[in-house]
């Protein structure tokens, strides 16, 4: 890299990370001040761990994200398999466009549209409040599905079409052929899709905000409620913890990536050697 490029990149990184660093530093501040650091203290962390509402929100968020990721991965993978086999152009285009809608639409419109439907249906059944954990889960599955499908579809297209056919010719039932031949081939896409669904669900605020009832809080909604009133550095402590969790996860996934790339390279080399040995 040239010198100017290096300086430019460094400046952007300062812009990206300065706010994070400031949150981190002030989470250890003894006073409540946001501009003067008056001494190191863990008091905001202690207070955070005593805040039952936040802890409950963490559990809620994780339960919701796990369920949404699992359900959307299973349904999305099946949908991708079906869409990949569609022969009709018209149907395929229709499916593709509908799948694109939640990704193109602003979150606020997805949230409002689902909320309106839930409220309307709830009113039909005479319920006073129709928004709860269930509606939120439905909403999360809905906005996760397109991302899973988009991760799995390319893997299916790359796959050798003869593979499942061969499995069936050799006596596998279609069901078994899918699990034994097709699924292992598309597994990287399925896993990436699931991780994406999980993180999208964890991170979502806007759609959750419109589709959650009053009683049920996820972490982003809890953060929203915390920042609505007067500020406590408890929020900074929470942000710092989230930051380090994310950092650890990213580092692990990067290491894992490099390892798998390395392994694949070795496997390919071995295969090549074996082939050469044979000829």
């Amino acid at each position, binding site marked *: 890299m040239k010198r100017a490029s290096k300086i430019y990149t460094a400046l952007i990184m300062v812009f*990206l990370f300065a706010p994070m660093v400031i949150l981190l530093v002030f989470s250890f501040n003894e006073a409540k001040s946001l501009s003067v650091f008056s001494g190191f203290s863990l008091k905001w962390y202690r207070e955070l761990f005593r805040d039952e509402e936040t802890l409950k929100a963490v559990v809620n968020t994780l339960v919701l994200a796990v369920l949404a990721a699992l359900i959307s991965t299973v349904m999305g993978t099946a949908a991708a398999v*079906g869409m990949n086999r569609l022969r009709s152009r018209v149907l395929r285009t229709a*499916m593709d466009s509908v799948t694109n809608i939640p990704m193109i639409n602003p979150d606020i419109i997805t949230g*409002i549209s689902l909320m309106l*439907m839930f409220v*309307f249906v709830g009113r039909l059944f005479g319920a006073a409040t129709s928004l709860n954990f269930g509606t939120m889960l439905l909403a999360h599955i809905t906005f996760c599905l397109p991302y899973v499908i988009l991760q799995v579809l390319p893997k299916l297209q790359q796959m050798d079409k003869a593979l499942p056919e061969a499995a069936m010719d050799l006596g596998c039932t279609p069901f078994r052929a899918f699990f034994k031949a097709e699924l292992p081939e598309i597994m990287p896409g399925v896993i990436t899709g699931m991780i994406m669904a999980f993180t999208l669900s964890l991170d979502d605020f806007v759609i959750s905000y419109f589709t959650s009832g009053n009683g049920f809080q996820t972490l982003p909604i809890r953060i*929203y409620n915390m920042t609505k009133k007067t500020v406590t550095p408890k929020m900074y402590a929470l942000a710092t913890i*989230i930051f380090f969790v994310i950092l650890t996860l990213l580092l692990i996934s990067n290491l894992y990536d490099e390892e798998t790339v390395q392994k694949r390279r070795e496997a390919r080399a071995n295969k090549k050697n074996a082939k050469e040995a044979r000829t």
Partner: protein
Amino acid sequence: MNKKTRSLIQYMTLTPYSIWAAVFIVVPLVFVAYYAFTDQNFHFTFDNISRFFTATSQIDDGESVKEVHTYLVIFMRSLKLAVISTVICLLMGYPLAYIMARAKERTQSILMTLIMIPMWMNFLIRTYAWMTILQDTGILNSILSALHLGRVHIIGTETAVVIGMVYDYFPYMVLPIYSVMAKLDVRLLEAASDLGCPSVSVLRRVIWPLSLPGVLSGVTMVLIPSISTFYISQKLGNGKFYLIGDAIEGQYTANNLHFAAAIAFILMVILLFCMQLIQKLTNRKIIVP
């Protein structure tokens, strides 16, 4: 595979998702239109839509009281701030994407991770961090006054809202442009300069047109969330700069679902129109040599 099993597989795999997509993607959008065009008793009406275009309110700017179209002003303001933020993101992000694509592979992946880390933080936290920095008693002002440079008042201005938007959505601009640029054939650039093309023209006539698909998706990915956001303006604009997202959220909180739906419907139609327009315009640009 015989025809029967094939159609059975297709039926089993596609049916659940098709039903789900119909019920939870298509039907809710129909509900937006339905609520937008009905009143409290679900009788057909144009009132909600026309209210958006005709509702007026008075603004007191210190000298005189002006009568303005409430929601049209809000919409134009959202559009203005979103466009400014998108342009700034593009100006900042394009060179970075270019630098990244030309760097060593190892550097590329490190930079990618670095850019993605803030993206993984919740946008509420990111916005809140800027509120801490920009406040009158915040970090920025204490640094400035420590350097005897005076103080600035940023929080509660449109500048603060733009800073927040740029910060929150910057990665969405860089990543698509980078992924297009990384695949760009270096030999094309070499060929251009070998044939005597000055480097400015290489950028304008080779790199730019080839990176246009990435730019396009980056612009869409920044423009759409920034035009419809509702938290950034509340926190960094001190609630003084109502945006279209705030208007929707406000009507929702006030339990005015029909009018909230009407605003959402109008926003959706306008965005759809804009995206078609962008696509048309850029297509033409690609063809022109």
